């Protein structure tokens, strides 16, 4: 492994050969280099490379006590180990193998889907044509350490081969001499490279202790100034005023980069791994690159570090130049991926001085990409008001209950439910507040009353509806501004990078909570619903919820998706096509369905696996018994069939994201059961076939979505946070495609942002109020009214567009040509004026059509006020639809 890298860096082996090998789709898992007598396996080489990069750069990302706040931000194997040893690695696909939980190495070895050696046949059970891509376990020699991972990236191969080869250290100016250092414990990474496994474990424990102490200290005394990365123009003042001279960092300069040739080679290798989907999680890698970009040189003043640094002379200073060089090169190389990040991040990158000084070209491209970027969450006009579930006489009045008593009890239960919810809202953030202590008894009392009245189905419906109302939206589920999302959105201005850094630290920080479900998986209000179910622990309620969730999920999974044109992949690059109006609506509808399905699937998973959750991983014997026992009963959802069906019908883009949510809730034993094992195996195959760079039938953003959800599932680890934040932006980008006017899931009834952009604040709040009023109007009406209104608006809108296409546009084109011919010099004939006039004409045409349409509706609705309001909303929607088509398709000319 190291020998290969060594040979590459010393140019004994042609990089092209290795890159081709990495790119080869599986048929050559092994690379033999006869002249060196080397045989290398992909699944060993990739982790080795990733690990190598992290170790090489660890100094820049980790330095000692003087910059303590940075420490937790490193994706250091040691920190990861801690996370994995505390969390149940079993949640990931590889959970079954190994004794210490998930390891990313294993993800890329076929053994990851099998519970152990005897489970190795499981892959062959998958009916996949390209099985040769995934050689069965045992066909490739996996080092013994792979089954006993001590860290996310298994570094053992390095230590094994190190004596024979000395890889050049490109990020430091001198070779490692750590093993001999008496302070080897300080840098256990290097230590572990030469030391034995037991030693490194010991060191890691030491490090863990230290990390914990450090973190505890950090919490106690935040040092914001030390968090500022070195972005010279922006932080000059700060470093000058707040940071002591000792802490000042070197500004990286391109001219000081050493080993650039070797770095270039590494960039190429690394980029290939990212492009070819060989890394377990591209976002984690992207994050690593960002870390390198914002890295700082270690200081040389700390006593503890002195001897260490003496050996390195100016290594730290050197390090930063090289890290930044490497990061910038990778960003250049992965530009396609980077360009899909949200606007904020792109802006931060574009404004980053280091990017500018190392690659003005990259900066320019980032600036351009920023303008085109559509990956943004336009949330301003989403109604933020939390609604209750409306009382609907059809389902909620006396005739729906078996007795007066049941009706009366449910009346009280609805009120208790909201009372509990309000109390949670008020107090759950207060220190020392405990859900179960405060609300547990009230909830359980309610459950026992419910049981006597047999009201579970009613309550289950109320519960789910409220869950969906509060948690479905991309934004609504965050209770306040302290979520990663809010941070991501707020990362603006000069302080941006510092905040990014802080955010990053929070993201990477492992959460110490050991529970059946780690808190981050239930953000915002979702936490209330999860805690409620736990406190209630009512099997009847859970059963009703499961029934309902399954039904709703399968219905959602069947929702028709209009596939975008096959050419989407190329078009997508251009970023300017606005798609057909229907296609835009389709994207919004799809996004709404997807978000909802993921939410429901998560809760279905939570409830289904709740009875099996244990805080500790069960012993082998208990495992076997449990597997035998549980394999007899029918799982709540036939995930295999769902996935198979979805793949056959090419609907994985909808199914996989929600299946991932469901599977992420698996208990320890879950992944070992045949049905889930098979599904996870299939998902793994799916993942490895999704190579982002390749233009296939699936569009880039769809693939990105799939890769990120699957990457997350296979590696549920601290990077989860990155996902939950990044993810929504991805989703938003994904669904809105290149439409700049995406307004989230309920945009259908929100004014277009174009209208709102230039209006004064007072007017805007008026418009927001109007949006809220419309939402509120539908709230207490039967759902069918909303559907009707949307349907009619849709039909009328698209008829209007057809009409325009056929008549007005033709005429306009003629007129426009004439105008152009008549007076090119006349500046009055601007397109926006033309547009306005068309809009005016369109409105008339639309209204005529509406008059007809509303006559139909009046058959169904008797109340004149409701009817009138519905009519008006319909008119507005239809006109908005048609106008947005106009501005999208006409102004562009």
């Amino acid at each position: 492994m190291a020998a290969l890298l060594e040979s590459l860096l010393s140019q004994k082996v042609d990089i092209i050969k290795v890159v081709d090998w990495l790119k080869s789709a599986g048929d050559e898992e092994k690379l033999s280099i006869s002249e060196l007598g080397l045989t290398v396996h992909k699944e060993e080489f990739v982790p080795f490379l990733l690990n190598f990069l992290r170790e090489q750069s660890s100094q820049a990302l980790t330095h000692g006590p003087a910059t303590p706040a940075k420490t937790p931000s490193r994706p250091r194997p040691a920190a990861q180990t801690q996370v994995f040893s505390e969390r149940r690695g079993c949640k990931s696909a590889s959970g079954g193998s190994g004794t210490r939980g998930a390891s990313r190495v294993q993800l890329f070895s076929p053994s990851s889907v099998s519970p152990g050696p005897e489970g190795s046949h499981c892959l062959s059970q998958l009916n996949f044509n390209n099985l040769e891509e995934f050689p069965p376990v045992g066909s490739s020699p996996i080092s013994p350490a792979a089954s006993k991972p001590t860290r996310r990236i298994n570094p053992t191969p390095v230590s094994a081969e190190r004596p024979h080869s000395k890889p050049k250290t490109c990020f430091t100016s001198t070779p490692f001499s750590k093993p001999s250092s008496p302070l080897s414990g300080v840098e256990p990474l290097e230590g572990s490279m030469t030391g034995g496994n037991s030693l490194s474990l010991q060191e890691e424990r030491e490090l863990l202790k230290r990390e914990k102490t450090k973190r505890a200290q950090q919490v106690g005394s935040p040092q914001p100034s030390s968090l500022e990365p070195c972005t010279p123009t922006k932080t000059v003042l700060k470093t000058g005023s707040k940071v002591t001279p000792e802490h000042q960092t070197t500004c990286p300069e391109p001219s000081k980069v050493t080993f650039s040739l070797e770095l270039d080679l590494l960039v190429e290798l690394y980029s290939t791994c990212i492009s070819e989907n060989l890394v377990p999680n591209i976002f984690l890698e992207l994050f690593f690159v960002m870390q390198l970009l914002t890295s700082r040189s270690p200081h040389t003043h700390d006593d503890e570090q002195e001897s260490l640094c003496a050996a390195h002379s100016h290594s730290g200073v050197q390090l930063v130049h090289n890290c930044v060089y490497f990061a910038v090169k990778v960003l250049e190389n992965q530009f396609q991926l980077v360009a899909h990040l949200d606007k904020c991040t792109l802006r931060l990158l574009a404004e980053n001085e280091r990017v500018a000084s190392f690659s003005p070209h990259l900066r320019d491209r980032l600036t351009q990409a920023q303008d085109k970027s559509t990956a943004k969450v336009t949330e301003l006009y989403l109604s933020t008001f939390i609604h209750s579930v409306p009382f609907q006489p059809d389902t909620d009045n006396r005739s729906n209950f078996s007795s007066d008593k049941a009706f009366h009890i449910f009346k009280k239960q609805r009120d208790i439910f909201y009372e509990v919810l309000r109390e949670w809202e008020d107090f759950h953030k207060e220190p020392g507040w405990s859900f179960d202590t405060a609300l547990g008894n009230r909830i359980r009392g309610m459950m026992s009353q419910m049981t006597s009245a047999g009201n579970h189905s009613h309550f289950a419906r109320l519960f789910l509806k409220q869950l969906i109302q509060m948690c479905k939206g991309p934004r609504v589920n965050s209770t306040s501004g302290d979520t990663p999302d809010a941070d991501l959105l707020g990362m603006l201005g000069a302080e941006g990078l510092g905040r990014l850094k802080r955010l990053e630290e929070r993201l990477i920080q492992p959460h110490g909570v050991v529970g059946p479900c780690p808190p981050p998986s239930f953000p915002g209000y979702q936490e209330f619903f999860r805690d409620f179910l736990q406190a209630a622990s009512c099997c009847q309620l859970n059963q009703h919820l499961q029934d309902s969730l399954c039904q709703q999920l399968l219905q959602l999974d069947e929702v028709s998706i209009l596939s975008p044109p096959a050419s989407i992949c190329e078009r997508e690059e251009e970023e300017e096509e606005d798609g057909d109006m229907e296609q835009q609506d389709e994207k919004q509808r799809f996004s709404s369905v997807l978000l909802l399905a993921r939410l429901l699937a998560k809760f279905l998973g939570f409830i289904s696996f709740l009875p099996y959750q244990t805080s500790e991983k069960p012993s082998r014997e208990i495992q076997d018994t449990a597997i035998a026992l549980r394999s007899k009963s029918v799982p709540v959802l036939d995930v295999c069939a769902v996935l198979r069906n979805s793949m056959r019908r090419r609907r994985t883009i909808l199914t996989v994201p929600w299946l991932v949510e469901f599977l992420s809730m698996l208990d320890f034993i879950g992944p070992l059961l045949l049905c889930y094992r098979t599904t996870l195996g299939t998902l793994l195959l799916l993942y490895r076939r999704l190579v982002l760079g390749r233009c296939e039938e699936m569009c880039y953003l769809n693939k990105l979505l799939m890769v990120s959800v699957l990457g997350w599932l296979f590696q549920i680890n601290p990077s989860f946070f990155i996902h939950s934040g990044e993810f929504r932006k991805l989703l938003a980008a994904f669904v809105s495609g290149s439409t700049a006017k995406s307004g989230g899931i309920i945009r259908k009834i929100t004014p277009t942002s174009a209208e709102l952009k230039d209006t004064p604040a007072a007017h805007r709040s008026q418009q927001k109020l109007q949006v809220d009023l419309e939402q509120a109007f539908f709230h207490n009406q039967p759902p069918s009214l909303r559907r009707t209104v949307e349907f009619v608006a849709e039909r009328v809108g698209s008829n209007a567009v057809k009409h325009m296409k056929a008549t007005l546009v033709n005429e306009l084109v003629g007129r426009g040509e004439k105008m152009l011919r008549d007076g090119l010099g006349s500046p009055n004939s601007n397109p926006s004026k033309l547009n306005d006039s068309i809009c005016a004409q369109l409105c008339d045409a639309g209204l005529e059509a509406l008059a007809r349409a509303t006559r139909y509706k009046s058959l169904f609705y008797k109340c004149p006020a409701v009817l009138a309001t519905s009519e008006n909303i319909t008119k507005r929607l239809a006109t908005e639809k048609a106008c947005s088509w106009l501005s999208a398709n006409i102004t562009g000319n």
Partner: protein
Amino acid sequence: MCGRGGRIEEEWQKDMEGKTLILSGRMRLSRAEHKEIVRWTEKLRPTRQCMKILKDRFPSHSQSTLLSIFSLEYQKRIKRTFSRHHVPDVIESYYQRYLSEAKAQPTAPVLLELANEVDLSPALMARIILDRFLQGQDGGMPSKSVLNSMLKEPSLIPDQILANNVYQCTINDCCYGPLVDCIKHAIGHEHEVLLREKLKEKNLSFLDENHLRTMGYDKTPDIILEVPVAVEGHIVHWIESKASFGDDQSHRTYLNEQFWSYWNRFGPGLVIYWYGFIGELDCQRDRGILLKDCFPTDIVTLCHATQQDRSPESQNKDKE
């Protein structure tokens, strides 16, 4: 909904000023102001003279507000002390005093004076004494319905002097008794009618309690708007009319028994305390419960850009 002792005050106003109800003065009080008024009511009895004192002491406040506050406070006082009076030997001593004094002065309002002397509501005193009187006649316990009908119609009482005394007690009590109950009911109804009229005036379509009951709703506010409006920037789906002053205790009770229940079913809404309320209680606006002391002026309705004929009044109303 029934007001809590509002009508008497209004009657008084008519008596004293010779004209119909004028709601004047400030009705949204701070907690401190309310406390000050409450402190003053402590020594007062539910009599005209006392109400005059209160009115003179707080001239800047609306009379209805002052009287409603008094009524609420007086009811609390009686609830607190009633058990002290409702003990057999205490009742017996009141009864004996009544008998001897009525014998001495057959035309004097002895029962009313006794009630004021021992600080018990006159109407409740009348009930206790009548109850004791009927027990003495038949030997057994009189039925509640007999008791109530006699209190409502004192001429049914076999003893003429007692009938007079009971009547005097009933009409001189502004907080308890069948007359007050009737007035409270009427005034509550009156404000509901007023509210409906205002809504019709504004062309707002709504369902009232009766509609809702026939549709099988389990909780029914006075009004549900078929098309929601915004009041001072807050969405309003329902309106509840309260012909009383909103103090801490009554508001808390209403919140738990009514307002939150409405929110739980119909979303955010508006409560009108026609006789005012403690301003600090209006703290749940963002959570969907808005308090007002009058019919709101700042009402925004849905208006559509395609609809060129928006009503000018709904377009931009100034906040009050």
